[in-house]
């Protein structure tokens, strides 16, 4: 079977075959529990887990002892925000975040709000970037934590983490960063960044699903309550038997990313430019999000007057995501694009292309061909396209909304 061309690396990545190779021995041959202190099975597993901890720490420039294993970035986001709010309940009950965050942050702060916390969710600018002054103004004396994602999953826009963190330090507010989409794409060092906690994920960086980590700074020392209780693993911050093979996979994946990030980013940037230039030859195509402050892996485009889901149908041999409401259960178009001030129409018409390690130039060329054909076909079908060509301003039309 001919599989669709995969341009959805921001959703997940294939596990690098080298990573798979490293994981395999830890399923049957070396199956020990890293917490078993009384025999060689446990010792071997523990040693491997600690090596992986060093590998993960190396990519993000952190002390290995600041890495706490979790089941993924969703859990890390929950642990960081809920854990900080609980531990520091005496200090205040205000939490600040941004409208374009991942649902695992937004839904977490909504849950805290139900539990009595004060929540401020900030707007972004049209380019998707947070205004530093708006951020500064939102921090109050009773603000415990601010959470801002490093790289946006829908648009690839990179927030100014150094500047935001500096503001937090100045105001004595904990700073949490969701770094799930940043690892292996943006070079950074947590030893230098003023970040207190960072959520990490393996499967966005060619590692396995079901494993992630939370960086919890030791200098300055950041304290949080656990949200999962049990055997006191991970210095009490996250109980549960460590998933040895998954952890080893994450370690190897991060190690490979550290090695290849520079050359890989260059190659991906040239593919992204090729894709963008190819598709922008179509009329009425818009890039969503800042093009400079952005990882090259992401190209989010709106094809005006074409609805996203029908466009996906027209490019069946290409695996991508759409911000169209029709592709989600909610019937609302992308909240990220809406927060950037994009109209509902353009949000409905958006497609996220995300490029990765295994994307080839030939695949990009095929995608340009298929997408262009589908867009042209659907515009032939689109009454809005006709109206646009007749010079009618769609905003001036009285639509019967339903």
């Amino acid at each position, binding site marked *: 079977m001919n599989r669709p061309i995969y341009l959805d690396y921001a959703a997940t990545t294939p596990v690098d075959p080298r990573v798979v190779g490293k994981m395999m021995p830890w399923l049957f041959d070396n199956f020990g529990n890293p917490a078993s202190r009384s025999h060689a099975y446990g010792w071997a597993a523990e040693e491997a887990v600690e090596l992986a901890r060093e590998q993960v720490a190396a990519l993000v420039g952190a002390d290995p002892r600041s890495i706490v294993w979790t089941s993924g970035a969703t859990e890390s986001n929950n642990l960081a925000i809920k854990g900080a709010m609980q531990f520091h309940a005496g200090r205040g009950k205000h939490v600040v975040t941004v409208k374009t965050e991942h649902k695992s942050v937004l839904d977490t702060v909504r849950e805290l709000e139900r539990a009595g916390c004060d929540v401020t969710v900030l707007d972004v600018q049209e380019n998707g970037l947070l205004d530093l002054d708006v951020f500064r103004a939102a921090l109050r004396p009773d603000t415990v934590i601010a959470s801002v994602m490093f790289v946006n999953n829908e648009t690839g826009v990179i927030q100014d983490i150094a500047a935001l963190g500096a503001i937090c330090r100045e105001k004595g507010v904990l700073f949490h960063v969701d770094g799930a989409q940043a690892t292996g794409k943006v070079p950074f060092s947590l030893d230098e960044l003023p970040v207190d906690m960072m959520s990490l994920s393996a499967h966005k960086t060619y590692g396995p699903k079901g494993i992630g980590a939370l960086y919890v700074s030791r200098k300055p020392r950041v304290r949080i309550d656990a949200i999962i209780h049990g055997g006191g693993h991970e210095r009490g911050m996250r109980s549960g038997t460590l998933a040895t093979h998954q952890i080893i996979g994450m370690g190897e994946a991060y190690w490979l990313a550290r090695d290849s990030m520079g050359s890989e980013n260059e190659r991906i940037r040239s593919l992204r430019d090729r894709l963008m230039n190819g598709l922008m030859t179509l009329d009425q195509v818009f890039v969503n999000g800042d093009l400079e402050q952005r990882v090259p892996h992401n190209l989010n485009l709106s094809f005006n*007057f074409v*609805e996203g*889901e*029908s466009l996906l149908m027209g490019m069946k041999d290409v695996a991508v995501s759409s911000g169209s409401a*029709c592709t989600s259960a909610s019937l609302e178009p992308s909240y990220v694009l809406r927060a950037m001030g994009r109209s*509902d129409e353009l949000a409905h018409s958006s497609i996220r292309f995300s490029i990765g390690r295994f994307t080839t130039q030939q695949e990009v060329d095929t995608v340009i061909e298929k997408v262009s054909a589908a867009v042209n076909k659907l515009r032939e079908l689109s009454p809005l396209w006709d109206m646009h060509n007749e010079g009618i301003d769609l905003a001036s039309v009285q639509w019967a909304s339903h």
Partner: protein
Amino acid sequence: MAYSDKVLDHYDNPRNVGGYSNQDEDVGTGMVGAPACGDVMKLQIKVGADGIIEDAKFKTYGCGSAIASSSLVTEWVKGKTLDEALAIKNTEIAEELALPPVKIHCSILAEDAIKAAVADYRTKQTAANTAVEAA
């Protein structure tokens, strides 16, 4: 989401795509939906002197199910009287295309498009008759 074969067929080979001039007296135009909601259907019916719908054309901005619903409706209204066309129910459209629950609104929109096109035609006729009587 898996699409039914019929939706895919209408998407791949949409029937009766196009339009007539809005000025034609024997044409009724229905435009329903809104870009902000993700679907806009334009249905046009051409009505013969005998009151039978001779032809129908559509253009649709929307998801595959919306395109399929409007394409199907152009086939169904042909050869029907205006009242017979008005009797087409969204549930029949949804059933024919095996639309999942989240796509029922596409069939409702198609039913609305028929109603709007018929209403437009009737308004035009009334205006024309009034003009004739006045003359």
